[in-house]
């Protein structure tokens, strides 16, 4: 039996339904995308980062001289900051962000720049472990020792 009110539709109904359906679908979409990502990526960034977005991308490294004393304020490219500040990352006017890598002894600075990423998502179909070399059908059989 066709409902007569199907003809004149309330746009509010569609909006509410779409919101509910989005909330219901996003968790499954997340696990679906996660299933195609590299293990290190999964634990390094959220699954939604496969979508195009602006992110800090590492563009270079700066080695500090071996005699740099990290316990005192350090001057890099004209900016002076303490180790803790360098550790959190210092933003430059030209958009670059310099961040100390690792502990004090590393004396290494990583350079980040904001760029659009996510167009060539790093996805994989090989999340099947090490035994995939012989084909997907070769199920590893545990051997008795």
């Amino acid at each position, binding site marked *: *039996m*066709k*409902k*007569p*009110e*199907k003809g004149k*539709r*309330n746009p509010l*109904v*569609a909006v*509410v*339904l779409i919101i*509910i*359906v989005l909330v*219901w*679908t*996003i*968790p*499954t979409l*997340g*696990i679906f995308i*996660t299933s195609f990502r590299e293990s290190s990526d*999964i*634990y*390094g*960034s*959220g*699954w*939604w980062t496969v979508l195009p977005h602006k992110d800090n991308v590492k563009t270079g490294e700066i080695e500090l001289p071996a005699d740099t004393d990290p316990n005192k304020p350090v001057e890099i490219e004209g900016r002076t900051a303490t180790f803790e500040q360098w*550790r*959190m*990352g210092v933003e430059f006017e030209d958009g670059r962000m310099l*961040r100390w890598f690792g502990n004090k002894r590393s004396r290494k600075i990583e350079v980040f720049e904001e760029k659009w990423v996510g167009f060539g998502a790093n996805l994989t179909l090989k999340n099947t472990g090490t035994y995939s070399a012989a084909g997907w059908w070769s199920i590893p059989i545990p051997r008795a020792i």
Partner: protein
Amino acid sequence: MPGTDANLFPVFRRFSMSGNIDSNWNPFALAGLVVLTAVVLVGGFILLQTVQAYKVLMTVFAVVWGLLSTALLFFVLNAVAENIPRKIRSVSVAVVFAGPAVILLFWALVIPTLRTLRLSFMGAYAREYVGFSNYEFAFTDPIMLESFRNNLLWMIFGTSFCVIMGLVIAVLADKSSREKVFKSLIFMPMAISFVGAGVIWKFMYAYKGEGINVTEIGLLNAIVVAFGGEAQAWLLIPFWNNFFLIAIMIWLQTGYAMVIMSSAIKAIPGEINEAARVDGANSFIIFSRITVPYIMPTIITVTTTILIFSLKLFDIVRVMTGGNFGTNVIANEFYLRQFTYGNSGQASAIAIILLVVIVPVLLYNLKEFRRRRVLK
């Protein structure tokens, strides 16, 4: 030789003389058939047990023998039942056909329940009787009290949200032209196992912790951080973590409630809605005065089904928190007592309590089913 069967089997003669037997089986043939069936059943069983070679051949034989001997058994039992006078025929036929199922049911359901009841009055290793001390533990231990409280939360919030969300989506989808798409997407989580749902929601609730330049990989924390909030370890916040677990059940079970109630809404005659509209009723009045009263039996059935479901809920808690951080439920505590602590007495007491709590809801559900059948 005339009258032989009457001499040998006076019982047959008496019945055949009273003339209320419909079967025209020769008693000798029937007796032979019974013996043959017994030989086929026992012989096949012994053959299968002794001959272990020719695996493929024996498998084929087992399948053929199993099917044919079962058919033969029912055929012969039916013939025997037909040879019994009419007065007790209906009973005997019922025994022949329902008997095996009843026996299996008794063996698989009643005996284990009684055994559990007995174990619940015994010690941890079922060596001695300890009276009611297991039940005393179940009603006084802080862990158990916490489990009861959490089960109550699951029952109240899990069930009501499932039913309300299911009803709202069913009613809204009924008005939409893309009904099938929306309903399919809402129903999709029903196809996911609870453990799979646990993995999915671990990614939703993931918490990376404090530290320098940490990127949250959990969607919920990412949203909170994006709006300037602070990342939370959602599953470790006492009391409120229960609601984050309940959300998973709502996500999974709303599809079920929606599908059942949607079909009930479809059964409402269009004339009623049209008449109400002619009388000037708006959508909300139609919903509250026509739709809800009309599908009330369905709502009750769905509610009780999900109620039973949330009472015996186990998987989500087991996968997400293992019952830690104040999220324990009765079924998980039963599992822990039985399989982790190896205390069959306490575990059985918990199982019996769970059974006693569920049975009234179950009976009400069955009564409701029966009442609706009568009304139709």
